[in-house]
């Protein structure tokens, strides 16, 4: 187990290094200095600015400085809003995005698993077809389309929910629905197919033969094993939800990190784009690592599998 964790940890650090270096290389290759604006700055001012941000040093020194600043969680300044740093934006925006993301995951997992289990239990019956039809729709409709549909129908026409912003629980319902539907559909399909497989296993027959209550068989014996693949794709889903927050926050005017990120892309505010990408990538890579470890702990078979170098 320790060996496995150590190996994953090494992989994680390597991945982190790749994304940080990639960001650095891209930043350096952008034509012109970040201070070359259309208005044109005084040359003395410009060289002072460059010295201030160490842009006059050779690349290798800049690289080391960059690695150092990332390691100390300093993601640099914003050029378009000089009074702000990326850290300021993260501090304000990230908690809101995090809240949105966490609730979305919880909603997606609970509803997805429930839907999948019911579909599997009523295999080839009307509930199964309805649930899977719903799931295919959920996978096919992009979240931004769903979001606009929800706003148009439920917020504008019926006036059940507020159109946008992030103030009270009722404001959260539409963005979370729009964001959670896709992952929910994926989880539902996965749960259904593994559940169907698990239900034919001998130990389930055994439990049935012993006269255990059906709900107990499903919750305690079948579901435990059927959920393993869901744990595996958790990392991918997380990445999807996280990037999904960018558009959802834009559409619903949620003041989260995604909004700053999209703004910084539109204004080509490179340090903010780079800083945010590095932060989010690091966040995701660490999450993936944790998911892997959790999987190793939950599934005793994993040690055998991993030895083959799979």
């Amino acid at each position, binding site marked *: 187990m320790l060996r496995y964790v150590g190996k994953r940890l090494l*992989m*994680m650090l*390597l*991945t982190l290094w*790749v*994304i940080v270096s*990639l*960001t650095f290389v*891209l*930043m350096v*290759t*952008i034509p012109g200095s970040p201070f070359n604006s259309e208005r044109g700055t005084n040359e003395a001012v410009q060289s002072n600015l460059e010295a201030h941000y160490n842009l006059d040093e050779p690349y290798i020194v800049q690289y080391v400085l960059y690695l150092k600043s990332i390691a100390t969680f300093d993601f640099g300044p914003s050029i378009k809003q000089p009074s702000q740093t990326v850290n300021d934006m993260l501090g304000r925006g990230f908690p809101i995005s995090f809240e949105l993301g966490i609730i979305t995951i919880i909603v997606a997992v609970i509803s997805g698993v429930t839907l999948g289990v019911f579909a599997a239990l009523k295999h080839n019956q009307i509930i199964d077809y309805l649930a899977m039809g719903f799931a*295919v*729709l959920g*996978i*096919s*409709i*992009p979240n*931004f*389309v769903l979001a*606009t*549909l929800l*706003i*148009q129908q439920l917020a*504008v026409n019926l006036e059940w929910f507020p159109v946008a912003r992030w103030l009270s629980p009722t404001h959260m319902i539409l963005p979370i629905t729009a964001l959670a539907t896709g992952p929910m559909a994926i989880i539902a399909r996965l749960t259904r197919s593994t559940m169907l497989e698990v239900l034919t296993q001998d130990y389930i027959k055994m439990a049935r033969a012993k006269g255990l209550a059906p709900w107990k068989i499903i919750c305690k014996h079948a579901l435990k094993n059927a959920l393993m693949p869901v744990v595996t794709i958790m990392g991918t889903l997380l*990445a999807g939800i*996280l*990037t999904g927050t*960018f*558009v959802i926050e*834009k*559409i619903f005017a949620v003041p989260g990190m995604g909004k700053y990120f*999209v703004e910084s*892309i*539109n204004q*080509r505010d*490179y340090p903010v*784009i*780079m800083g945010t*990408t590095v932060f*989010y*990538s690091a966040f*995701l*890579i660490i999450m*993936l690592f944790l998911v892997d470890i959790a999987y190793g702990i939950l599934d005793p078979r994993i040690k055998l599998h991993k030895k083959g*170098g799979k």
Partner: protein
Amino acid sequence: MKTKWVDQARQEPVQASEVPDAWFVWKKQDKAALEAVSRPSLSYWKDAWRRLVQNKLAMTGFVFLVLLTIFAIFAPILSPYEVNKQDLPNQYQPPSQEHWFGTDNGGRDVFTRTWYGARISLFVGLMAALIDFTIGIIYGGLSGYKGGRTDHIMMRIIEVLYGLPYLLVVILLLVVLGPSLGTIILALTVTGWVGMARIVRGQVLQIKNYEFVLASKSFGTKTSRIIRKNLLPNTMGPIIVQMTLTVPSAIFAEAFLSFLGLGIQAPFASWGVMANDSLGSILSGHWWTLFFPAFFISFTMFAFNVLGDGLQDALDPKLRK
């Protein structure tokens, strides 16, 4: 287990030893029926196709995609309207005889633009799938076939790339390279091929130990030829499925990027650009400007997804009847 013999006339059980010989009758054999082949022997691909045709949902997707491709090629040519020509007096016309899908904020015909968008979205999706396929097959095939140290190193590289968040890397690359059709496809494939390579490698690992590969090897066949002639044809099933799933994810990614302002740039129209441009107009009631591109994005993704699912079942040799 003992079989119980029942006297049909008296409806009571009879001991096995007491069964009269008269009960046994020679079964008539029809020589012709025995000789006849019950079913023409099918090749793997014919059988897969036969099963795919039986899957109604997958066929719906397939037919939709064929129609979509035909329309994407011919509709813009036949349409009397120009894609990017603005006609401001005719702004926001609802769907009508002249404008089947209505007009948008610039008075442009949404019908024409939708099919132009289909061209770009399909092109991005297919190119991404094709490039992933090429790189994935070469990399995965080599890694799986060589095995040992080479495989180990190649797999570690893949693991690192696999850990990178896909869309974030795409965004990063596009911000620097500047959005255009070429750079979008490039950005989508820079890390996109990893999934394909993993699948190919897994398949090759499985198949390379079969006897026919060994036989080929003992004849002194070159590595590249073994990979091309022996291994790849037998790994095609999962690869095709993966390709049908790459296309919708690339189309989705393109639409997503358009939303961030990193998609195809105006005046070109992709579905994502059209949907993004009409976000505001839906609140003012011009629903058609959003509905048609959104519908086609969703239905194309749906079609590819069900086709992929259908292919997965059809190409699985275990399910062969």
